């Protein structure tokens, strides 16, 4: 396994995530796609730290911070989605239609 393998993997994960955000109709599915993108970036950091970096500790620590921050973000996102479910009774993005123009 080389650096280019890892970068290819992370870019594929990024593409899968963006595709998921664009095509998924369910809000939970969209959140999962976001997580896929974030983890793709984490793989990138770990790979650069392992193969290339002059300061490998920084790259190894960064993903841990990313995980903590994305946990906060997901907590907020789930709270928002629950309150949306209470208002609209569906988790479908096609229900997000009242604001437009």
């Amino acid at each position: 396994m080389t650096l280019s393998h890892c970068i290819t993997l992370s870019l594929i994960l990024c593409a899968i995530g963006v595709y998921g955000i664009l095509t998924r109709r369910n809000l939970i599915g969209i959140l999962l796609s976001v997580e896929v993108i974030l983890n793709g970036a984490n793989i990138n950091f770990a790979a650069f730290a392992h193969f290339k970096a002059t300061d490998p500790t920084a790259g190894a620590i960064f993903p841990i911070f990313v995980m903590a921050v994305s946990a906060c973000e997901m907590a907020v996102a789930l709270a928002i989605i629950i309150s949306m479910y209470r208002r609209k009774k569906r988790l479908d993005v096609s229900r997000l239609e009242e604001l437009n123009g």
Partner: protein
Amino acid sequence: MTLLLPDLLLLLLAALILAFDLYKGEEASSSNVTFHICWIGLMTIFFVLLGLPYDEQALYLGGYQVTGISLLFKQIFVLSAFLTVLLSKPYFTPGGNYRGILQYRSEFLFIILLCTFGMFTVVSAVDLLTLFIGMELATIPLYILSGYQKEDRLSVEASTKYIIMGSLSTGLLLFGYSFLYGCAGSLTFEAIAAACTANPDEPLLKLGVLFVLASIGFKLTLFPFHMWAPDVYDGAPSPVTAFISVSSKAVAIAFLLILVYGPLAAMHSYLQPILLVLAAATMTVGNLGALKQQRLRRFMAYSSIAQAGYIIMAMAGNAEAAYSSIIFYLFVYAAANYAIFFILSIIGRNGEENLSGLRGMGKKNPVLAAVLMLTLFSLAGIPPLAGFMGKFLLFAAAAQEGYYAMVVFAALNSTISLYYYLLLMKEAYITQPKSSKKPLRLDSIQKTSLAFLTFAMVFAGILPVFSSNILAVVQ
């Protein structure tokens, strides 16, 4: 430690408000105590900021830097938080707004303060990790705030849209950071700047920069990524909309300035055409979008998209011109935007914030209508108001580098914007209301704030003291 005083005071204030709320419980959310603590505290922090030495700089704990420029940005953030706190007052009192009362006031203030602290962190960062944490601390609270009216379908929908777009942009930002890290081998700005100077044509570097630009495009509402802005601005409660349109935009601009003139300075000639194309597209889309809006908050969203375009244009200039003109313009933009949102909160007391809500204002509330006129003229950039001075400096920054065609294009765009700002004036002065209306009611906080903002807009344009002070700090 004196340079760190505003940051520490801000954290202390936030802790104080949360502690007070936990201690008093139900009582605190109905009383005005936390509100008074908050605005007095923010005012104190602002005066502390004014008193600090702007020619010194210091590095704390190896990762938190305070410079004159970061202190200027902190002034903007504190001022914006202060005005948001004042603006939010009627929304927490029964009958203050037609959409219903907001609850949990102390938490609201606490979230605003923490968000402001995140912005402080962004302008103090010297490595990508601090920058990332600061940016997230400045963004995640905004998702909560935009859904603050839990019972309102529009507010919830706005926050759902915002958090989906926001997390996508975070993901792209992280990809950008990882490529910058891979290229430089370290997270510090120094290492990235060294890698950038050594080899500005490295494809990894360019890939990273494009990811970062795309991500910050979301937060700054640049052209292909601006779609969320009108929906979020429309659905969120008004004080939050004002806060998003000023503070969140200011922090995104600060972030871009720090990167473009800091670690990526060696790539500036590569970035210039990208920034100019983004600027041209953004101002056109913003101005054309605003033409057909009926709802005032959507209108303000498109107007602020266009303003972001003008600001980005100045980043084609050299560091000194870009920093001084953009910081000055942010002050001017903040004053004008908050004035509009104070007027919106007055209209929104009894009815929808539509264009028709402005009707009859010229007869019934002549002073308020005059303030609205001054504000719109300042946003459009009519001399001798502050908006003209601000736009002039932005255009001059781009013109110094010889981008005359771009400046002419921006001036034409500015003319389009004058048209739709005048549409608002027409509604306020000429169109007759269908039924006779009572004059709008202003409370003392709204009167004082509007007077202060109008004063700022008129005098920042006439007296060059303010802009030359900023230029002196930047140099």
